[in-house]
Structures are given as structure tokens and as C-alpha cells.
């Protein structure tokens, strides 16, 4: 919870640009992350999830087409839906965020799914997650956080 308060508003740290995206306005390459957390991977599971709010502060729509998270073998944006009494996860391959709009990542709904951690994580570690649009990439820092009631064990890395 302390971490949640500390990261109540985390602003874009850096932006990686291609020659093409260099022609874009600075604002178009910017995204803002609020309350970005990734739950520390639990022992026994190779997958975990991240949550927060992605804000598009620009005057134009942004379309996220993929993500990359350092420290994990693969990462994707998923959504959880309830269908005929079953909870299902579906990958989202394109996320439009309208001008000045927000995209919520929250438990039981949209989330970033992270597979196969490449190193051990502890609470408070930062994980840079790069959000890719068709024109640019923006890295946003998520904070590793314990699940609300998870009891830490000594062998969290696989």
C-alpha cells in the first residue's frame, strides 16, 4: 500500500524513437502511467499480471499495438471476460486510447500479462514496460508489489 501511495502519479520517463517517429510531435510520443504495479510472480507460477492506468495526454488518438517488459520473456495485454459462467482471458492486440483518454488496467478486467520472469523480483523493484504504437515506443515504470495477502517465500524465481 505504501508503494501504491508513492507511485500515485508516475510520469513518462523516456521515449524511444525511430527516425520516422522523430518527425512526430513530442506530445504524440508521450503516455502517462498512474498507479502502475506488477504483482511479484508467485512461486509455482510462471505468469503474473500488472495493473494501472495508461493516460494519453495528447490531442490525438494513440493506438497501442504491443508491449515489452524487461525482465520477462514475454508480455501481452489481456482482458478477462465472463461468458456463460466461465472466466476467459483474451489477448488484446490493438488498444485505441482517445485524445486525453484513459485505459484502465485493473484486476478482473484488462491487465498486462507477463510470462516467465528472467530474474528474481522483490517488492519495490521497477520494471520498465514499453508500450508500442505504430509510430513510437514509450517505456513506463511499473513497481513490483506483493499481492495483498500473499505470504513471501524464498524461492520466487523459476
Amino acid at each position, binding site marked *: 500500500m505504501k508503494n501504491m501511495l508513492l507511485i500515485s502519479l508516475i510520469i513518462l520517463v523516456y521515449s524511444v524513437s525511430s527516425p520516422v517517429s522523430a518527425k512526430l510531435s513530442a506530445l504524440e510520443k508521450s503516455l502517462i502511467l498512474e498507479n502502475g504495479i506488477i504483482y511479484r510472480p508467485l512461486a509455482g507460477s510462471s505468469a503474473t499480471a500488472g495493473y494501472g492506468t495508461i493516460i494519453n495526454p495528447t490531442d490525438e488518438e494513440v493506438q497501442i499495438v504491443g508491449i515489452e517488459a524487461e525482465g520477462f520473456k514475454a508480455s501481452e495485454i489481456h482482458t478477462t471476460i465472463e461468458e456463460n459462467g466461465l472466466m476467459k*482471458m483474451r489477448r488484446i492486440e490493438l488498444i485505441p486510447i482517445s485524445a486525453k483518454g484513459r485505459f484502465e488496467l485493473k484486476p478482473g478486467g484488462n491487465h498486462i500479462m507477463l510470462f516467465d520472469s528472467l530474474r528474481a523480483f522483490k517488492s519495490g523493484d521497477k520494471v520498465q514496460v514499453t508500450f508500442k504504437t505504430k509510430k513510437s515506443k514509450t517505456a513506463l515504470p511499473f513497481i513490483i508489489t506483493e499481492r495483498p495477502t500473499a505470504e513471501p517465500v524464498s524461492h520466487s524465481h523459476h
Partner: protein
Amino acid sequence: MCAFIGFVLYAQREPPVGGDFSLTFNNRPWKFSEHSKKLNLFYTGYVKCPDVCPLTMSVASRAFKQLTDEEKSKVSFLFLSVDRDHDRPEDVATYASQFSTSFLGLSGSRDQIDYVSRLFGATYIIEDDPKSHLGYGVSHADRIYLLNKKGKVLYVIHFARDPEQILKAIRSRL
């Protein structure tokens, strides 16, 4: 293409009756009636589930943490992984124990898992998902079944998101 479908039709049935069942815990045979307590909470999912399973189990864990020691001695929480092809039994046991040391992570053969799914109407579907790095997806019920000592279903909590709801359900049946 569907890799496996587990008892979709049972989703349409009336509330399940339940009963005794056999699974495995940490690769060892485990029978409900030999370990059951006065009240037993039963949940199905899979350990690579990043969202719903840990969410529900965290909520249940928060409820358990509010129980007195005497109450805890009368209640168990059982998590069954329906994904026997990818979740190793020892990983299932370890995974569940991190939410509470009293939580048991159970596995089983496909026949055992399907028997239990049928017993409680705990539907699941495992299907290929070529769009995801995982390569497959597991759709499953998000229900906590409250069972008596004989495994009979007393109550079902759907989409448990409030620890107080679980706590109230437990205490009213102890």
C-alpha cells in the same frame, strides 16, 4: 481448435450436490473425507492464471486472516488446478500455500479432475490460443463452493471480491 472441454453441459444444471472425492496433494493420494473439516471452501482454476485466480484467492486469504484460531481449525481452503498438463502438482501446492499456509493446492489425474468438476459443476475449458505466448487458455468457473464435512455443497459464492462476504458465509456455517 479445442484441446479439451470439461463438462460444459454441467453449467446448465441445478446447484450441485457434491460428495466425497479423491485427488492428489504434492503427488500423493488425497481423499476429501480423510482431511475434511467442518467447513471446506473449494475453488478451481490454474496456477498460470495471472488475474482471476489470484484475485479470488487473495480475497479468500484476507477473509481467512480475520478468523480466530478456533475458527481456522474448523475451516479449510482447497484449490484444485484443472490444468494437469501444465501445472506440476508440487507447483500447485506451493502456489496455494502463499495465499495462506492453510490453503491446500490439489492436483489429480484427468479422470479425477473431471469427476470433481462433474460433482460440483465446476466447468472448465482448455483450448488452444495461438495468439498468446502461453499457447493455450483455460476458461474456468469463478466460484467458491462451501462444503460440509461430507463434501455436500452448502453454499456457492460467485465472483468473490469482498472478504467480508466470505467471512460472513464462513461464520454463519460454523
